[in-house]
Structures are given as C-alpha cells and as structure tokens.
C-alpha cells in the first residue's frame, strides 16, 4: 500500500488501473481530461496492458465501451457534463444490453450559460438510464468506488454499467492523501472479468441490442433491468464487506454522519458534504443535535435505509446541488418519496438549493439552513425550495451585470 497525494482524476485513473481495465475509449472534456491523459500514459508505457482508443465524440465513446464490454472485455470510460448528456442515448442503450462497465463522470454544471464549476444536474440526467450510480465525497472514495463499481457491475445479480461520480475541481483537480492498494490485493478483491451472459465470440453468432416491437416484451426487459439495478444494493454490500476486510475502509449505500439521536438531519451528496460535516461539528460543540445523511448510492435509491435512518428526526433539510426547473431539488423529491413510501413523516421537511455551477455553500448558509430547520414547525404550511445565496454573491452578480452593460434596477425581487 502506498499513500500519495492524488487528485480525484488521478484517483479515478488508479481505480481503472488497479481494476485492470483492458479497453479505454476516450474523448477529452474539462474537468475530466486528466483521467484519460493519465491512462494514455500508462497504456503507452506498458503499465496497463490493453487498448486505449481515442474516439470522435462521447456518443461514439460510450457505444465503443458498450460494444467492448459485450465481448467480455473489462472496459473503463470517463466523461463530464455536456459529454455525458451528449452520450445520454447511448447510456440507455448499453444499460439495456446489460453489459458491465464503469463510467466515471466528473460533475460540471450544464450549459447554458456555459460553466466549468460542478453541480449534479449532469449526472442526475443519467439517473433513469439503468446505470448504477455511486457519488464520491473524497479522492480516496473515488479510487475505492471504481473498484467497488466493477464488483457491482460484474455481479451476476446485476450485470449493468456503473457510473462513479466526482465533483469537478473540488475533487477532480484537488489533491489529498490517497491510499493506493497493492495490485495483488486489488486483484484479490476484484478477480478477472467472467461474463455472466453470452458474449460476442467468433463463429458463435448472437444478436444483442435487438428490436422489440411488442409492449409486453419491452415492459418485461425494462422491469428486469429495474430489478437488476435494485440488486446492486446486495452486490454493493457483499463487495463492501470484502473491501473492508482487505483495505479497512467501510462504505455503505448511504453515509450516516453523527445522526445518532439527531433531531435535525441534513441530506446531501458529493464533495460539498464535507462542508456540511464542518457545520455539524460546530453545532454539535454547541450541544445541538444535528447530523448529515450523505447519499452515496444514488441508483438504486436506498429508500428503505434512508427512511430508517431519518425515522427519529424532527426536521430534515435536503440540500440539492441541482435544480429541476419547475420542480425544485431532485433529491428532495426522491427523499420525500422514500419517506412517504416507508411511512416516515418528519414534522419538518424542507428543500434547499445550493452549490449550483460550483457556487460555494458557506458556513453562514449552513447556519441559515439549521436555524430554519430548528425554528420550523409541523404546521407552518407549504414551503418552496429555497435558493442559498449570500450578500457577497449578490453584490458580485450586480457587478457582473453592470460589466455586461445591463441597467441595474433597484428591486432585488
């Protein structure tokens, strides 16, 4: 085991290397490019045997990845933002082929307006594709999740592609200490890829990706995919148990942070959860009973575990780093649905939107969230999603609009 400072991108590349991915179709996009640059070097110098191929788009890249996986080759790919949504129709296709592969997405806000900072609208656009999704908080978790992702993807109960998400800049370009597992230990955790369904072989004709014109047949296959995605919970649990035994780090479908006996819970995903943990530490030192539930496995959505974990809370606030225009926060609605389905009814359930396009969520904003939740009552009536925004950011917007030649009107509403 080696402990090194690695960016999230380098950690993702190390995950692919330790998984012994044999085929990497590639197309660059900021802030992901460092992943494929790193892998290109390793394929070139022979530290990774196999094939690294540059493609002409993410659409072609995912098609090549799915086709390669359908021949029984362990496949890795990485993209971000516009690249992910450009490949979106292929994500649906390769999931329908039920081929295991791992795709890393480096989250970045979607255009327009064009930006480079992270939020989760890109990766959540892929939430209905049939890909299993794991969202990482740290660079270590990026590397570990890639290894876990292959175990899930290749599990006979699942046999599906898995997407590992990390936030652009906040993880992708951020170095932090990462333990790199020994290659033979990684091999012990993740054996060779043994396909669980017939793959393309010379002189053994099979047809994959076939047309299905009957609604009944289509329903059957789509429902089978749903059940297979659900099976990823069991596959993840088995893999995480082995992982802990070999490497000492334990991962769940959710991370429960200081939620024992908590009255107030925040729900978040991704690297910004670290900021929420800092807020929780401050509040706990003041004697306030607060914790964080981090969504790690996003598909399948671990509804039962979320509901059980939040069952004792008086107030739950979901901070979405995404925005579904006209609806609000995506995770808020998924959490609310999970709670309702499991007959868990926290008296207060509120929605906040923060961190869009990489906007910071400051400790002042976390304090505002906590105070809102603490002072809220069960019968306050309906509340819309609240955008977290600071005076400094407001002034900055004013400044930029003035630079853009826009006439400022005094009303802030």
């Amino acid at each position: 085991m080696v402990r090194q400072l690695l960016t999230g991108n380098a950690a993702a590349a190390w995950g692919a290397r330790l998984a012994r991915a044999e085929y990497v179709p590639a197309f660059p996009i900021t802030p992901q490019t460092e992943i494929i640059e790193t892998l290109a070097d390793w394929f070139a110098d022979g530290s990774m045997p196999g094939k690294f191929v540059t493609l002409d788009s993410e659409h072609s890249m995912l098609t090549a990845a799915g086709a390669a996986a359908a021949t029984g080759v362990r496949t890795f790919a990485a993209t971000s933002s516009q690249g992910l949504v450009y490949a979106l129709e292929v994500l649906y296709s390769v999931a329908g082929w039920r081929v295991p592969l791992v795709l890393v997405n480096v989250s970045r806000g979607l255009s327009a307006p064009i930006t480079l900072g992270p939020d989760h609208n890109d990766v959540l656009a892929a939430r209905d594709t049939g890909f299993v999704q794991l969202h990482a908080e740290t660079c270590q978790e990026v590397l570990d999740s890639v290894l876990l992702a292959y175990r899930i993807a290749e599990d006979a109960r699942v046999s599906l592609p898995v997407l590992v998400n990390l936030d652009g800049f906040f993880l992708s370009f951020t170095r932090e200490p990462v333990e790199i597992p020994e290659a033979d230990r990684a091999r012990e955790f993740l054996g060779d890829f043994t396909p669980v369904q017939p793959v393309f072989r010379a002189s053994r004709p099979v047809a994959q990706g076939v047309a299905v014109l009957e609604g009944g047949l289509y329903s059957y296959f789509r429902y089978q995919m749903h059940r297979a995605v659900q099976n990823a919970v069991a596959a993840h649990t088995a893999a995480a148990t082995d992982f802990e035994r070999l490497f000492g780090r334990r991962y769940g479908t959710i991370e429960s942070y200081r939620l024992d006996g908590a009255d107030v819970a925040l729900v978040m995903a991704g690297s910004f959860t670290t900021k929420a943990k800092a807020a929780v530490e401050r509040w706990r030192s003041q004697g306030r009973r607060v914790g964080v539930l981090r969504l790690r496995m996003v598909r399948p959505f671990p509804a039962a575990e979320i509901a059980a974990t939040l069952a004792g809370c008086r107030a739950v606030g979901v901070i979405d780093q995404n925005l579904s225009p006209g609806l609000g926060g995506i995770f808020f609605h998924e959490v609310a649905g999970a709670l309702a389905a499991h007959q868990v009814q926290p008296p207060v359930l509120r929605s906040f939107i923060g961190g869009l396009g990489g906007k910071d969520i400051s400790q002042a904003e976390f304090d505002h969230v906590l105070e809102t939740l603490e002072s809220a009552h069960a019968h306050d009536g309906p509340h819309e999603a609240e955008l977290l925004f600071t005076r400094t950011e407001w002034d900055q917007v004013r400044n930029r609009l003035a630079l853009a030649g826009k006439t400022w009107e005094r009303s802030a509403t």
Partner: protein
Amino acid sequence: MIRIRFHGRGGHGVKTAGRIVGTAAFLASLQVQDSPVYGAERRGAPVAAFTRFDSAPILERGVIDSPDLIVIADETLLADAGAAVLAGQTSAAAVFVNAPAGARLNEKYQILPPLVTWDITARTQAVLGTASALSAGLAAAAAKLTGLISAEHLLAAVREELRQLRATADVVDKNVTIAAEVFDQLSTVRFAPAASGIAGEVLTVGYEGVNLGTASILAPGNAQQRNTGTWRVERPEIDYDVCTRCGLCQLGCPDGAIKIEKNGFPVIDYDHCKGCMICAQVCPLHGIARTKEVRSW
C-alpha cells in the same frame, strides 16, 4: 360502440380505409377514433388499422382486441399466424374478406362469425387499373355492414380522404364509383351488443436473471421462421435456359434468399425472397423475369 379492425398489407390502403370510415362517421356527427399500426414500414408487410365510432364519448384507445367487424384486404393474411387477423373473432358480428363471392374460407381458416366476401380487387383493377389501393372498396364494405353510415357520408369521406392524399379528380371519381358499387351490393349485418366481460389474470413479475432479462438472441438463424416471402409484390423467376451460372444474382441478393446448387445454378428461396428484384437488375443476360405475384391483389 362499433369497433372495426382492418387488416391488409402495405399498399392495400387499409390505413386510408380506416380513415374513410372514421371521416364518414364524423360527418354523421358520431364520436370517432381511427388509427393505424405498422411495424416494418414496407410495401407488402402486414398492416392493421382501427376505427371506433359511437354516439357516446369513446373511452378506449389503441389496438382493438375485441372487434365488432374484421375487414381483411388479402386472403393470404389468413394463413399468416403472425398477422393474427382473426384474433378476438368471437366478438365479431361478421368477418369481411376481399375475395370472390362464394369463396369457401370458413372451414379452411376456421372463421367463426358470418363471412362476407366481395371481390374488391377485381373491381378496383377494372375501374382504377391497379390491384392495390383498395381503400374505397374496403371502407364501403365496412360502412355498409355496420348499417350506421349513409352512402352520402361515405362518398363524401372517400372524396375528402383521397383529396388529402392528393389524388387526381379522375382517381377520386373512380374511387367514389367503386365505393358506391360496394355499398350498394352488400347488406347490413346484425350487431349484438358487445359483451362487457373483463378477462385476464394479473400477475407479479420477479427477477429472472440477466440471460432471460436481456433483449438478445442466442438462436442463430431463427429469422428463417419469419416467412417474409409473403411481402412480395413482384416475383423473380430465373430462366435456366439463359442462366450462365455467373452467380451475380446470389451476390446481389440482400436477404441471402438465393443459393447456388451443386450444379452451379442459382435457386430462389421464395419463402424469404421479398421481391426487391435486385437479382433481375444485376443479371447480365436479363435472364430473370419480373412476374406479378399471383394473389388476391
């Protein structure tokens, strides 16, 4: 409600037939739904169309499983299990088949409801000079059998639908002639009130593993089971007195429906030849004849 299901092949005009009946019922101030369904959009491939009309709002959509009337444009469809033209026939007051009067089809195809036949193809050939585009005759048969649509509304609907297809005035007039004749010569059938029994079992689907649960085909060569030869409009016939065994027809066949026998002569597999006639085009000695496929159209 009257539910009419039309069956034909691409080119027969069953979609237009369904629309003519729909428009006629609409002109009669009835509530109407009409829709076609087709998979492989190709001349000769099985096509179905559905028309519903009622004096009350129609609370149904899509495919008609329990038709009051089945209208079949081509007798050969009765032999194609995949086309399932008689599905739900027990609810039908009548089955109309475009075939010569007195054609004994009931026993051959196990048609249970009263059978009505009329040779629309012969009449269309005589008036329009084509064996396809049977929509006016098929629509007129359906309209008359229901007894709920007047000749006036039917003929207005024929004009309207063919005008939308940009038919010339002459073609429109000829279609009106055919429709009027069919309408005049057929008789209305008795419709029993539709049984409202709800059948069918609802079950729970579990996880069945990746092999069953993936849309893939592991049985090579199963396309042979699909008899695409019934889609043929024209039939290639090799003149073996001319054939020099050059093999170009076999190379040109996009469906692999020509094989070379041990003696070097090509043989056409008519169960799967779709009649694209590429073989006739590539034959350097023009030794492959184009003959009209002999069927009811």
